[in-house]
C-alpha cells in the first residue's frame, strides 16, 4: 500500500490480515502524519513518547498474532475525544478546571482503564493513538483560554472545525486516522463532521455505553464515530454496539425505500446558505436516481424544539458542574463558566415542560418514520465560520441537530457538497474576502428510526457512493 492511511478501515484490516501491511507500519504512518501536520491543525492534545510507544507495542502484538486470531479491525488507528478515558492517558476535558488539569498542580492523571466505548473498539483490534481536542467540557467554543488552542479546519486553517468534537473531526479530515470517537449532546459529532467534510454518526440515545465518558447533559449525550466514510463509521458503530449491525447492509442500495425530505424545515430560513439549499436539493435528486421514493415531509416548527433541548442541556450541564463552579469558578474558561451560569434561572417546571415538548416531537418524528425509512435534512445551515468572527463576540452557528438529541433518534451526517467560493453569506459567517477564496464543505443528515443505524448507514452509504467525492481537503502547504 503506497499510502495505507488513504484506505478504509475494512481494507486496512484486510491488508493486515493478508500480511501485505503490518499493524506497526500502519501505526507508524499515522504517527508520522500527525507529527507532520498537527502543528498546523492542532487536533491532538495528548500524544507523548510513552503513548506512541504503547501504541506501537499494541501494533506489534497484533502483528505477532496468528492471522486467524486477529480481530476484525486489527491494527487500525483510533482517535479519542478528550472527555473519554483511554487507559494510561490523561483525560483533560479541555479545561483548567478539570481535577488534576491545573498547570500549577501538573497534568491530569492518567485514566486507570478504558471507557467502555474505547474498550469495545480495542477489543475489535483498533489501537487508540491520540487524545483529541474538545471544546471545554464539550460545551462551547472555540476558546483561547483552554489548556490547548482550538483545533483548526483542515479545509481552511482560518476557520473553525465546529464542536465540540473538534479534534476528532480535524484529525479525520486531515488524514491522520480513518475514525475517531466523539460525543453528541446537541450536534457535537454531526456539526464538526459537516464543517470538516467527513461523516459523523450520532447513534440512538442509549445505544453506546457511556461509562468512562465525562458527561455534559446525560439525557442528551451519546458517544459515536466521526469517520472518513459511511463504511468506516458503520464498522466502528457495529463494534461499539454489536446489536446495531450497522455495517450489515452496506452496498445494498436503496431501491424501493421511501425517504422523506424535510425541505420546509430549512429552505425558507434566512440563515440557510444558498449553496446548502442547492446541495440538499441535489442530494434529494440522488435519492430518486437511486430508485428510492422521495416524499416531502413536514416536521414540527424547529425553534421551540431547539429551545426545549437548550433548556434541558443547560439544566443538566449546570447540575454536572454545580460543585465544580462552587469551588473552582475561576479555573473554568470565561465562555464555559458564563454559559453554565445561565442554567441557574431554570426551574424544575421549565425542565419538565421542555421534556414534554421533546416527547411530542419524538412522537411526531416517529409518525413520519412509520412510513419512511429515513428523513433527509441539513446538518448545519452553512459552512464553518472563520475564527476571526469569534474575536468580535459570540457567533450563532445555525444547525438542525439538537432536536434529535431531544428525541433520541439516530442521525448520520455526511458531506453533500461545497460552497462555491465568494458567497452571499460572507458577513454572517465572518468570512473575510481572503477566506472566501476557497470552498468549504457542507453536510446533510439522515434521521432514522430508533435503533436502526443499520438502515441509516445503508442509505448513507448509497448516497455517498452516488455523490461526487470531495477533493482532498488540504489547500495549505503540508507534507
Amino acid at each position, binding site marked *: 500500500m503506497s499510502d495505507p492511511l488513504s484506505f478504509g478501515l475494512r481494507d486496512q484490516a484486510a491488508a493486515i490480515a493478508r500480511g501485505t501491511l503490518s499493524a506497526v507500519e500502519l501505526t507508524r504512518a499515522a504517527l508520522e502524519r500527525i507529527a507532520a501536520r498537527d502543528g498546523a491543525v492542532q487536533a491532538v492534545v495528548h500524544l507523548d513518547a510513552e503513548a506512541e510507544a504503547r501504541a506501537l507495542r499494541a501494533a506489534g502484538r497484533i502483528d505477532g498474532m496468528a492471522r486467524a486470531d486477529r480481530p476484525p479491525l486489527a491494527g487500525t488507528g483510533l482517535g479519542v475525544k478528550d472527555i473519554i478515558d483511554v487507559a494510561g492517558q490523561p483525560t483533560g476535558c479541555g479545561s483548567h478546571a478539570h481535577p488534576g488539569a491545573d498547570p500549577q498542580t501538573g497534568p491530569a492523571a492518567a485514566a486507570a482503564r478504558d471507557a467502555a466505548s474505547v474498550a469495545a473498539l480495542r477489543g475489535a483490534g483498533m489501537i487508540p493513538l491520540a487524545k483529541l481536542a474538545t471544546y471545554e467540557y464539550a460545551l462551547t467554543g472555540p476558546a483561547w483560554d483552554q489548556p490547548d488552542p482550538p483545533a483548526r479546519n483542515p479545509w481552511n486553517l482560518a476557520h473553525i472545525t465546529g464542536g465540540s468534537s473538534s479534534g476528532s473531526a480535524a484529525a479525520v479530515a486531515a488524514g491522520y486516522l480513518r475514525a475517531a470517537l466523539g460525543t453528541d449532546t446537541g450536534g457535537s459529532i454531526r456539526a464538526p463532521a459537516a464543517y470538516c467534510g467527513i461523516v459523523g454518526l450520532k447513534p440512538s440515545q442509549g445505544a453506546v455505553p457511556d461509562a468512562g465518558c465525562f458527561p455534559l447533559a446525560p439525557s442528551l449525550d451519546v458517544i459515536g464515530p466521526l469517520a472518513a466514510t459511511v463504511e468506516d463509521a458503520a464498522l466502528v458503530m457495529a463494534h461499539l454496539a454489536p446489536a446495531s449491525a450497522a455495517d450489515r447492509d452496506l452496498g445494498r442500495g436503496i431501491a424501493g425505500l421511501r425517504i422523506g425530505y424535510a425541505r420546509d424545515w430549512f429552505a425558507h430560513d434566512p440563515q440557510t446558505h444558498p449553496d446548502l439549499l442547492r446541495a440538499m436539493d441535489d442530494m434529494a435528486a440522488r435519492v430518486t436516481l437511486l430508485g428510492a421514493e422521495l416524499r416531502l415531509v413536514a416536521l414540527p416548527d424547529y425553534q*421551540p424544539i431547539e429551545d426545549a433541548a437548550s433548556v434541558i442541556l443547560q439544566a443538566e450541564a449546570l447540575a454536572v458542574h454545580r460543585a465544580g463552579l462552587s469551588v473552582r469558578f475561576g479555573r473554568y474558561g470565561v465562555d464555559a463558566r*458564563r454559559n453554565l451560569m445561565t442554567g*441557574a*434561572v431554570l426551574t424544575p417546571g421549565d425542565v419538565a415542560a*421542555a421534556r*414534554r415538548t421533546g416527547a411530542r416531537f419524538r412522537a411526531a418524528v416517529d409518525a413520519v418514520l412509520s412510513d419512511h425509512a429515513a428523513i433527509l435534512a441539513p446538518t448545519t445551515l452553512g459552512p464553518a465560520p472563520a475564527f476571526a468572527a469569534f474575536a468580535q463576540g459570540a457567533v450563532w452557528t445555525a444547525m438542525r441537530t439538537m432536536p434529535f438529541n431531544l428525541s433520541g433518534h439516530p442521525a448520520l451526517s455526511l458531506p453533500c457538497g461545497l460552497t462555491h467560493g465568494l458567497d452571499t453569506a460572507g458577513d454572517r459567517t465572518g468570512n473575510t474576502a481572503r477566506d472566501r477564496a476557497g470552498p468549504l464543505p457542507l453536510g446533510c443528515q439522515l434521521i432514522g428510526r430508533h435503533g436502526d443505524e443499520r438502515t441509516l448507514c445503508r442509505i448513507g452509504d448509497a448516497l455517498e457512493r452516488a455523490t461526487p467525492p470531495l477533493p482532498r481537503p488540504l489547500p495549505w502547504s503540508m507534507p
Partner: protein
Amino acid sequence: MQNDPGTGDRDPGAPLTPEAFRRHLASLGIAAPEADLLAALPAARILRRKARAAGAAP
C-alpha cells in the same frame, strides 16, 4: 437541576435582574464575580425566554 424558588424572582414574566440572577446562583452555592454575572445576564434572559417558548410549544 435544583432551584430555590424562594430566592429567585417568582414572576416568570418579570425581567431577570442582576440581583435575582445572583440569588439564583447563590442558592446553588455559586458566587460569581460581578463581571461574569453581568456578562452572562443577557444569555440567561434568553434562556428564560426559551424555557417559556419551549413550554408553550404545541
